[in-house]
């Protein structure tokens, strides 16, 4: 039985099958990449693109609460643009955003530079600076509500006790006082975000640059102007973009402090949109007011990105 000693012939291998389309898809990097992107894209579409698209669509309809609307073209926009209250709200929003953003930037940058130096209890001071940002907006708004109260204001009380005034300050009952008061509250709340973010940026500036500048005999202002500021520009662009967007769309502070009063002097586009759509039931009109905010917001973003980020070295070029 010599045959028995012979090794058995190896089992025949299955022929290599043709790669199916599915196999190719499984190993196709682009296809896999697409699938990895799907959750993020779905999230963005569901929670950002869809509401935005719906909002824009609603602004072209006469939808009211509890009743679907019909397409009415640009009628809502025509009405809103001719409305004195809307024109006032646009002015208020631009004024509020501009002044508050400039003030927040100036104070935030000053604080960041201050905190970047070696100070005693540095960690604790940095934590304290963050407090206004940590407190929920509604709570800080209520605190300011009391601070600006026409009858019980601590500021009025202190000034009266010191003999500097005989009457209470009409913080929220006078148009300009109210505007400055809400701006003050917004700045108080917004400064920590800017200060801490800029501080983080400052800490990425290599100390060797300052050393070199010192050796060259640069003054402190020259060091700030030619080292700190240019290197901080990308962070400033990001932080100010966010700051402008947050301020432009501010709602809570105004709602609690003045509810748009006195007589519409502090009405912002965001509060007006809410009041029109949710309180007044006119969803189409409210959506038109919200949508009208988009060009302003896009404008703010453009200025930030093209104005502050045009430096070539930031785009990877030399």
């Amino acid at each position: 039985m010599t045959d028995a000693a012979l090794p058995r012939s190896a089992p025949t291998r299955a022929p290599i099958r043709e790669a199916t389309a599915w196999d190719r898809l499984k190993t196709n990097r682009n296809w896999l990449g697409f699938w990895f992107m799907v959750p993020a894209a779905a999230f963005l579409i569901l929670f950002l693109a869809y509401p935005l698209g719906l909002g824009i669509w609603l602004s072209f309809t006469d939808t009211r609460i509890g009743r679907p609307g019909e397409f009415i073209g640009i009628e809502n926009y025509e009405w809103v643009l001719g409305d004195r209250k809307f024109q006032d709200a646009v002015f208020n929003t631009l004024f509020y955003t501009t002044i508050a953003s400039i003030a927040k930037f100036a104070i935030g940058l000053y604080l960041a530079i201050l905190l970047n130096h070696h100070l005693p209890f540095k960690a604790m001071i940095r934590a304290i600076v963050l407090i206004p940002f940590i407190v929920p907006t509604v709570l800080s708004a209520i605190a300011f509500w009391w601070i600006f109260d026409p009858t019980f204001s601590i500021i009025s009380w202190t000034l009266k006790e010191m003999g500097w005034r005989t009457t209470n300050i009409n913080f929220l009952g006078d148009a300009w006082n109210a505007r400055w008061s809400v701006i003050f509250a917004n700045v108080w709340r917004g400064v920590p975000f800017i200060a801490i973010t800029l501080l983080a940026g400052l800490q990425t500036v290599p100390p060797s640059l300052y050393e070199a500048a010192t050796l060259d005999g640069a003054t402190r202002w020259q060091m700030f102007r030619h080292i700190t500021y240019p290197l901080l520009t990308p962070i400033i662009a990001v932080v100010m973009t966010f700051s402008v967007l947050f301020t432009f769309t501010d709602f809570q502070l105004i709602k609690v402090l003045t509810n748009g009063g006195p007589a519409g002097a502090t009405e912002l586009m965001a509060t007006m949109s809410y009041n029109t759509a949710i309180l007044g039931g006119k969803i189409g009109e409210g959506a038109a007011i919200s949508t009208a905010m988009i060009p302003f917001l896009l404008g703010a973003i453009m200025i930030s990105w093209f104005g502050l980020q045009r430096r070539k070295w930031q785009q990877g070029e030399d």
Partner: protein
Amino acid sequence: MTIKTPSLDRRSFLSGTATLGAGAMLAGSGLTDFARAWAQSAPFKPEANASIQLLRWKRFIQAEEDGFMALVDAFSKATGVKVNVINESLDDVQPKASVAANTNQGPDMFWGLYSLPHLFPAKCTDVSDVCNYLGKKYGGWAPTAETYGKSQGKWIALPVAYNANVINYRQSMIEKAGFKSIPKDTAGFLEMMKALKAKSVPGGFALGRASGDGNAWVHWVLWSHGGNTVDKADKVVINSPETAKALEYAKALSDTFVPGTASWNDAFNNKAFLAGEVSVTNNGVSIYAAAKAGADKDPKMKEIRDDMNHSTWPVGPVGRPTEFHIAYPMLIMKYSKAPNACKAFMTFMMEAENYNKWLESAVAYLSHPLKAYDANPVWTSDPKLGVAKTAAWDTLTAGGQGSVGERAASALADFVVLDMFASVCTGRETVQGAMAVADRQLKRIYR
């Protein structure tokens, strides 16, 4: 029985399953016995294992809420229907109801202000059976209750109660200004306010976006001078000589106010009055209730309690009262899975055995819409409270001469009239300019 108390959060909610205190009160009151007997013969049979949620305006008087929760607890015990009561501040009820109506999700019942149900009449369950039953049993509804409750001949909401918005004043302060009582006409009233500013403590009315107090006084001024937002056919007539006169009168009146009224919401005048900073304001009788509640511990509160009083509004050139009291209608959303349980609750709440006790616990903060409750002891127990008794019969309705529908609700929600007065009183607009802005807004709403 679970106990849940309001947290510090503004949106705190209180579980409807009543408090232990309310339970103890029930044991002695016989409310549960009545509830059980009532449940046997109730005109509306709740669905099996029903559970309902009610969103109401947050109470201004603790005793009122205690009385209400006792009633809720009795209903739950007798019928087995769980009732969750969520409390929201007055200004937050409407946005929540609006969102619920739009999304077909949320509490089964909403209890809000003025013409809230008319913002979305198509979403409200027909409660004609409840209201007809109650009207027949308790001497009939006040005409304004029918106006607020009905849409196209059907009851879309139950007009539960009113809150009389009246003039609150300090007797000693108006006497110092040379007046014995609140003048009965608008001209005399202006003279008194001027004298108060010159010789005593000034008065003040809310010019901020105060849904209750702000709307009440500016509508009084508008109507008392013959001005109106719309006529009987809902045609916009705000831009008129009568409105101009009303605005001029309000401007003159506001010149006598304490500083800051342009920022006042519904709570500011209460605080200022209780601090002795204001001699005359408009409000419900809740300032008096707060003074009474604090009188035992605080001599200042005792002084205010003894010194303050209430008055109806002066009559203007039109020669008849033009008051604007707050209506509190309750509605059932059409999406509710337990409409019968809701109807049963509404009926139970308004039955004399419950409503009378609750009305007493509200110490005249709430006024009844059904004639039979004229006999409630609260109206004779304290002469200072009698002024609120006929609020439902004295008030004009949202929209004035016009219909109390969706458009009137929208105009009220947009603060068209209040903003018009505030812009003139604060000097931001001329009389003509303010009327033109309001006219444009109203024409859009009533188009």
